[in-house]
C-alpha cells in the first residue's frame, strides 16, 4: 500500500516538473531567428478605424479611460477642462449614456437640468468658457463651448428653460435642446407629491 503511494507521488512529481524541464530544454535549444524584427502593420481595418474614432470621441467628452487617467494624474486642472465639468457648472448633470456598436456605432449623452443658475453662476460659467477657449482652441473644444453657450442662450428665452439636452456624437453629431415652459403644469406624480406636502403642512399648522 505504502509502495503504491510512493509510486503515485513520484509519477505526480514527474508529471508536474516535466513541462518545466522541457521548457528549459526548449530555451537552451531555441534556434536563431534569421528574419529581422518587423513593425506593426500601419493599415487599420475599417472596424479598427471606427473603433479608434469612437474611443477618441468618447475620450474627448471626458468619458473614456484615457480621460479618466488624465483626470487622475492632473487632478483639478484636468477636471476644469472636462466637458462634463462645464456642463456641471451650467447646471446640467449627465443622466444617460447610450452607446451602440455596429456598422455605424452610436454614442448619445443625455443631460438633465440639475439646478437653476444664478446671475453669479452665469458669470462664472462665461468666465470658465473664456478660459477654456484660451487653453483649448481646437474645433472640437469650440463645439463643446458652442453647446454650453447654446444652453445659456436658450435659458434667456423668456418663460422657457432648457429641461434636457441630448448630445449625439455618433454616427452623426447633433445636439437636441428640450425646452419647457417655466410655468408648465405639473405631471400627475408631481401633483400628488405637492398635494402630500400641502396636507403635511396643514397638519403641522
Amino acid at each position: 500500500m505504502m509502495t503504491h503511494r510512493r509510486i503515485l507521488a513520484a509519477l505526480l512529481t514527474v508529471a508536474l516538473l516535466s513541462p518545466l524541464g522541457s521548457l528549459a530544454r526548449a530555451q537552451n535549444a531555441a534556434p536563431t531567428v534569421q528574419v529581422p524584427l518587423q513593425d506593426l502593420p500601419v493599415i487599420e481595418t475599417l472596424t479598427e478605424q471606427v473603433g479608434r474614432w469612437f474611443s477618441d470621441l468618447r475620450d474627448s467628452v471626458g468619458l473614456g479611460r484615457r480621460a479618466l487617467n488624465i483626470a487622475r494624474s492632473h487632478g483639478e486642472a484636468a477636471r476644469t477642462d472636462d466637458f462634463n465639468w462645464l456642463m456641471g457648472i451650467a447646471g446640467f448633470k449627465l443622466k444617460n449614456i447610450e452607446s451602440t456598436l455596429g456598422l455605424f456605432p452610436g454614442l448619445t449623452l443625455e443631460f438633465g437640468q440639475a439646478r437653476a443658475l444664478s446671475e453669479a453662476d452665469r458669470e462664472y460659467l462665461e468666465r470658465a468658457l473664456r478660459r477654456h477657449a484660451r487653453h483649448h482652441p481646437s474645433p472640437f473644444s469650440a463645439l463643446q463651448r458652442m453647446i454650453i453657450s447654446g444652453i445659456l442662450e436658450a435659458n434667456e428665452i423668456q418663460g422657457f428653460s432648457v429641461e434636457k439636452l441630448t448630445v449625439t456624437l455618433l454616427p452623426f453629431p447633433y445636439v437636441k435642446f428640450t425646452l419647457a415652459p417655466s410655468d408648465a403644469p405639473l405631471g400627475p406624480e408631481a401633483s400628488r407629491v405637492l398635494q402630500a406636502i400641502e396636507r403635511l403642512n396643514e397638519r403641522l399648522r
Partner: protein
Amino acid sequence: MTVFRPALLATALLLAPLAAQGQEGSVLRDQLHVVSSGSSHAVSEALVEAFTQRYANVMPPQLEIVGSAAALERFCAGVGVDTPDLAITSRRIPRSMADTCAANGVTDIVEVQLGLGAVVIAMRSGEGMRNLTTRQIYTALAAEYPAENEFRPNTLSSWSQISAGLSAAPIRAVIPDQRSGTRGLFNDFIMEGGCREVKAVRMIFSAAFRVSKCVTLRGDGRIREVASEAVPGALLASPAGTIGVISYAQLLESGGNLVPVALNGVTPTAATIAGDDYDVVRTIYLYAKRQHSRNAQGVGVVRGIREFTADAVSESAGGPSGLLTRHGLVPLAPVIRAQQREIAARQTLLNR
C-alpha cells in the same frame, strides 16, 4: 436780366446744410445725465469731472449713484428727457435687460469697456494670513453651513478651526454694506464661489434659495458692515487678524497700510487682474444711448454723449497711466482698448 450761374447755385446747395448745422437749434436738455453703480462711483466721478474740465462751456453732467441693476433699469426705462443718457456699471447688461431696453424703445445702445475692477480681501500690514480660498471665507462668514441634510448655525470661532494651516486668530471681518457694488462682487464671486464648491449646496435646484444660503452672513457680531468707503479705516482700527473686503482702488489708496490676501492662491496685482488669473474681477462698462445724441437735424435729447464716451475710452483715461488707473481700474489689454476707442468713435451699436 439775371444771369443764371450754376456754380453759384451748386455752392449754395452745398453750404446750406452746414449753415443749418451752425444754427443754434434747441436741445431738450443741456446737461448729460449719468447713472452709475456704487462700485464704479469713483470712476464715474472722475469721468464727469474730467469732462467738465475739458469742455469749459457746458453744464457739468448730472451724476446719480445707484446700484448696477438699478442703473441699468433706469437706463432702459425709455427714451426721453427724463431718462439717463449714460450708465456706468460693474455688470454687463444681461440679455433680458437688453430685451427690456428694446421693449421700452431703447434700441440704439453703445457699449464700451472702461477697465477692470477687482475686490480684494485685505488685512493690516504685517498680519498673519497670506492665502485664503473662497470656500474658507464662505465657511467662516456664512450664517449657516450644511450638515447631515440640514443647515445649522455657524459657530466657528477661529480660522484654524476651518483649516489647521490657518491662523488661530478669531474670525472677524469688516465688509461693505449691501448698497455697495463691492459687496455685490463679494457676494457673487467670493461667497457664491466658495459655496459652489460645497456639494450639499450645489444640489439645491432653486437658484434663489441657494443664493440666500450662500450670501447670508452670520449675525453674531463677528462681521461688521460699514459703508464701502469706510471699510479701510474700520479695518485699520479693528483687532488683529480681522479681514476686510475692499476694492483694488482702496488697496492702492491705503499706501501699503493694508496688504492683500491671496485668493485661491492668486495675489491681486495689476498683472493677475489684467491676465484674468485673479478670480474676483469685473469689467466696468459704459452704456450710451445713441438715440439721445442730438444730430445735425436737431433730433435728439442732448449733446456730448459721443464726446463723453470717446474721452472715457481714450488712452488718457483708460491707458496704463490714465485717469481711471489712478482711480483703481486696471487697464484692459491694448488690443481691447483700441477696439473700445473704435466703438466710441463710430458709436457702433451693441448687438446682443
